[in-house]
């Protein structure tokens, strides 16, 4: 485990040095605080739970922002080292290839988790002291933070996948952008298009649910927008939640699968790669 730790610490130090850590913490804090301030308007008039409102608005934006941060952190992780030639040297040290991936992943995940925990956590504490949230809303907020880290982890893994597959750094940039657009924006548009086009309702509810689950960002959305009753009341997604027939632990497992499968694939591909 020594090698994993050494590599993880190097990634964290790099993150601190090139201001990735500070930048992403600042970004997520500003996002959370501004949503909190904006969100107090609707909460004030209908007496909705401020924390629950924040969960809804924050997770809706997290789904765009966090994958972007995660991909930017990770797309260069392998191809960058291949191109610079630093990987060549690293692999002659007593380090197994899976340890390099595990180390990088731990380091990048720590950076992302720190940003979520500090940025969203501090905001959560502020709401906790000022808004008197119910326990259900607190649970929803914690769930949102946890699943945000998981969503980030999934996109770090997907970023590595891009990084190990491409032969040039420029291609990795293009693929990462494409991946972000595909998962975060285009996939849902495509689903929407299918639903609109499917006038005769040939598409079964079950198939539609399945199609939502093959995209980690949709899993994250379902988890946070239908996660708890207090949130459902705000999003009006109680019906969706009921028909999905999925409980939270299953959704979390699926999201975790989106972390594990890409990472295992990356290790497999990396092991086969000649330098």
């Amino acid at each position: 485990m020594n090698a994993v730790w050494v590599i993880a610490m190097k990634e964290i130090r790099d993150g601190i040095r090139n201001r990735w850590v500070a930048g992403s913490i600042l970004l997520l804090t500003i996002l959370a605080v501004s949503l909190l301030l904006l969100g107090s308007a609707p909460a004030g008039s209908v007496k909705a739970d401020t924390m629950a409102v924040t969960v809804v608005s924050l997770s809706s934006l997290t789904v765009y922002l966090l994958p972007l941060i995660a991909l930017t952190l990770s797309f260069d992780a392998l191809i960058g080292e291949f191109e610079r030639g630093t990987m060549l040297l690293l692999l002659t040290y007593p380090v197994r290839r899976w340890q390099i991936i595990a180390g990088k992943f731990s380091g990048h995940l720590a950076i992302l988790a720190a940003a979520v925990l500090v940025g969203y956590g501090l905001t959560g504490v502020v709401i906790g002291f000022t808004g008197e949230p119910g326990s259900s809303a607190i649970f929803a907020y914690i769930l949102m933070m946890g699943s945000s880290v998981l969503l980030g982890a999934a996109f770090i893994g997907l970023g590595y996948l891009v990084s190990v597959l491409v032969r040039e750094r420029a291609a990795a940039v293009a693929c990462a952008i494409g991946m972000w657009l595909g998962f975060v924006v285009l996939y849902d548009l495509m689903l929407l298009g299918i639903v609109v086009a499917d006038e005769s309702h040939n598409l079964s509810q079950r198939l539609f649910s399945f199609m939502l689950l093959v995209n980690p960002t949709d899993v994250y959305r379902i988890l946070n927008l239908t996660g708890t009753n207090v949130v459902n009341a705000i999003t009006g997604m109680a019906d969706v939640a009921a028909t999905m027939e999925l409980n939270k632990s299953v959704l979390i497992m699926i999201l975790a699968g989106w972390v594990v499968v890409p990472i295992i694939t990356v290790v497999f591909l990396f092991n086969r790669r000649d330098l």
Partner: protein
Amino acid sequence: MIHLRGVSKYYADRPVVDRVDLSVYAGESFALLGHNGAGKTTLIKLMLGLCRPTRGEILVQGRKITGAGSGSVNVGYLPENVSFHDSMSGREVIRFYARLKRRSNKECDELLAQVGLTAAAGQRVRTYSKGMRQRLGLAQVMLGNPSLMFLDEPTSGLDPALRALFYKIIAKRTAAGSTALVSSHALTEIETSVKRMAILKNGSIVACGSMEELRCQAGLSATIRIHVPAGSTKAVAETLRDKVDIKRVNERTVDLNCIDGEKMEVLRHLGSLDSPISDVDITPVSLEQLYTHFTATEVSTGEGKIK
């Protein structure tokens, strides 16, 4: 220490390394020579397990190398044009690698001092010159005092003083029992700093051995230059005609070409001559001549392959 048997590596059906048999023994300093693209770097990468052989067997320090394994504490490697993480300082770089080999910070400082980088250790690698990077590269090779060092073009682009320092450090390590495998274009340096060498051409080994062995294999002749009083070259040439191949350089100088085994006989003959020979210079076959001989186009691939 290193044993390669029938090792080939193909990239897109093209052999980059072709049926190479090679043995390098413990405590030896060994050089891989060859043109650019002859397969030196690929051969080193194969021995380090950085890529898989298409065919053949590689044994390094008793371990079978199949590719994609982990490196060893006992192996050091200096890649051609070594690069490091630019945002780290020299000290941070060496400490990072040291931790992977579980070596101490104290050892890092000693190695930085050995390569003359102590003063610049706090600077970011981004600001380093080529020479400084190469010094840092050499320092990391020596981490953990490895018993086997692979140095790929270690002195290319370095000034003469730094080249000398490199070979001095490597010689010190091999004297202490380490094995060094160096690939290089700098033939004059290699000639004096390694015991044995292999010449690669189009991925195959065309010659392998010590300088003496290579001279014998090549059958190239050494040059004995004799200086005689003005006008007596013709007389001297006459007496030697049936003994050796002669070339008159000018009216005072004659070159005699003879293969290594005949040298003493020719010298004895010169000593017995009545003619007044004022001076004798002997120029042995240089590595450059041997290299040109073995890599010349008329030597077909695979010919002269020696275990």
